[in-house]
């Protein structure tokens, strides 16, 4: 049907279609596609200020030897494993609690959880910097008063990464909540009603009706969150000193930034790191699609 419609589309329509795409297409091509292609190409060259030289897989061979890079990979994976399930679970739970509420309450919570997304990472990181401050921070004040425990949260290798993960969780909830609330609204009430008539309790209804029907939304949340958390950067740059202590919070994207833009100027090596990340993210996304992407129908 669609192919028939497509072939029947007249030339002026086709041209106007392209024209409508241009305002978004040109910046997308210029600032996303071209840098991506250029970045991958760059990784096969030795870029010096005096000129470039093709070096094949040399930068990738260097990566194999680079302990700091692999420690950053390990930290990034830890970050993803900490943040993504928590964000998925929390946002789903909060959405399930908020959805049955009245229209205004729902709007309020949607707004409240979305504010951090609008506020931007830099502002939030500055607030968290103050919260984590060892001398006058809110966190130490609270834990000191309530639990008698005070710590240099970002200064210890065992607490630094989980602390940063907690920060990322707080500003990652907004978008998944919006998505889950919208997806919940798309589930026909008859299905719940039928399940209720069949004697299913609230938990069984959630487990056997709601959750399977949220599969497409869950897939979207998991894929976008995984990609987002793999690229975590601002929180490392602002809340730690160079991904410390002892590289405990250094992530792949932070390492790329440091490799390219500190006086090392190793643009090609940074590009190799980025290309590897691209492949890893692509693979993970495909696996997630394969595992969770089975079509769910409401038949």
């Amino acid at each position, binding site marked *: 049907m669609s192919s028939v419609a497509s072939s029947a589309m007249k030339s002026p329509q086709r041209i106007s279609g392209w024209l409508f795409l241009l305002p978004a297409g040109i910046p997308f091509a210029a600032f996303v596609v071209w840098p991506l292609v250029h970045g991958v190409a760059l990784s096969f060259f030795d870029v*010096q*200020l005096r000129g470039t030289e093709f070096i094949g897989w040399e930068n990738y061979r260097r990566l194999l030897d680079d302990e700091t890079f692999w420690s950053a990979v390990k930290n990034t994976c830890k970050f993803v494993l900490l943040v993504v399930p928590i964000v998925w679970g929390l946002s789903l739970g909060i959405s399930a609690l908020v959805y049955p509420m009245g229209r205004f309450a729902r709007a309020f919570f949607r707004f409240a959880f979305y504010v951090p997304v609008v506020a931007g990472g830099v502002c939030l990181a500055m607030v968290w910097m103050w919260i984590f401050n060892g001398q006058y921070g809110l966190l130490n004040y609270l834990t000191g008063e309530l639990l008698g425990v005070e710590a240099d949260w970002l200064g210890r290798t065992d607490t630094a990464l989980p602390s940063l993960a907690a920060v990322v969780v707080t500003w990652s909830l907004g978008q998944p909540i919006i998505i889950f609330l919208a997806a919940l609204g798309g589930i026909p009430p008859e299905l719940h009603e039928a399940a209720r008539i069949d004697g299913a309790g609230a938990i069984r209804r959630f487990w056997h009706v709601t959750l399977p029907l949220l599969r497409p939304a869950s897939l979207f949340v998991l894929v976008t969150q995984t990609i987002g958390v793999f690229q975590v950067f601002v929180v490392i740059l602002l809340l730690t000193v160079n991904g410390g202590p*002892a590289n405990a919070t250094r992530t792949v994207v932070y390492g790329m930034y440091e490799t390219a833009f500190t006086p090392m100027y190793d643009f090609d090596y940074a590009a190799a790191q980025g290309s590897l990340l691209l492949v890893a993210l692509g693979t993970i996304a495909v696996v997630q699609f394969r595992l969770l992407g089975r079509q769910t129908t409401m038949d």
Partner: protein
Amino acid sequence: MIARRWVVVILLAAGLSSCCGCGSERPIRDRQGRIIVEYWHQPMVTTVPGLEDEVKEVGDFERYLARQFMAENPDIVIRTQCLNWEDLPRKVPISVLGGRPPDVLMDFIGRTSGFWYQGVLEPLDEVIAGSEQDFQPQLLDASLLPDPQGVRQLHAVPLCGWVQVLALNRAAWDVQGLGHLIPTRENPRWTWDQFETAMAAIAGPSVTPLGMQVASEQGDYRVLQFFWAFGAEVYHDRDYSRVALNSRQGVEALGWLVAAKQKGWIQSNVATAGYGFFEMFWQGRTVAIPSGVSVHQAYSNAVRDDKVTADFNGDGRVDMDIFYTLPPTRPGVAVSLPVATNGLAVFKQADPAKRKAVMRFVRFLASSQSIGRYARASQMLPSRKSVGNIFSDQPAVTEILSRASRCDVADMGATSPNYYDIRKRLPAYLQAAFLGLKTPAEALAGFERETRGVLRNGGPSPPNREPGG
């Protein structure tokens, strides 16, 4: 249909290439036919004695110099640009990649040397020809780098050198009747035992005497000073193909530093704290900082900003008496000090007339008068002897700089090809030692292993050993 699709693709590609197009080179002359010389510099000078009306903020001094030069050279126009500390390491290389570097750059030779190894700088021996003897040998030596044939050439004309000494707040000892524990003004040198006794005497719950940070590579010379105190070296005999810090002396030094932290001589958050130790110095929580000789100047600013609250006897009055000593060393180890030289580098010039104009400007900047003003304003050692005693009104600075100039220069490898790459790797291992995650021996062995990988894969590779070096 297919042809139309290709038209769209070609149009898109054309649009893209125009977006990503390379920048054109800078014009050589302005509309009046004057040669344009672009001068980029550090934000080093904020006040210059005698030029208070002309120089009120960073960049003013360079504009003043440009005006002076243009008055004498009406065929040349100087455009100055002051780069802040964050922009310096980024904007310059990006400008080189974009084909629009400055003509003259004033910066730390640890950075300018990177440009030399990339082959984008002019050798400057001709600028100082005939006046070599007038330059401080350590500063001149640091600016001479090997070209691809191994011949040492002047890659930057040295202006002044930042020398590290140990700045004390003498009042901390004096008000407690412990003044006899520290060196005298006449002989500001420590014995190692004397240093440890003085630190132990002053350390307490509210005072961690030694100001230091290892959170980043910035200020690494502060912690390295204690490695040198034990006789350890970052590089041995200018061999930049191997980092030599992992030695018996290095392990002893790191062991001493870790123990000093455990004894409360170094702040407990040394692994993650940034530059807070200067604030701590004003507050009296730290009383000894490896530092340049500009602490007096910083003190004036701190007083103006109402930051100085050091009060060791609780009488409500500020106790601050800044006193410079040479850093202590273990018995039998000579004092060696890091010297960070700032210099003038010239990017490759294709046009002979412009090259001539650029060299004329560099000669002007490297005159005794300009260097004297730069050095005085930044409280650094001037590169030229003929500037005379520019610190005559600051006897303490004169005295310590005179002593410092007779000490060996500690080799941080600042002008070695992989300086930044190596330097960036050290803090993580020092942090691991300070946090007790690794023993000093394990930390330095790990650092050596990693640097071996870096040096094997290395960046630009000029001859590692300099002739006769």
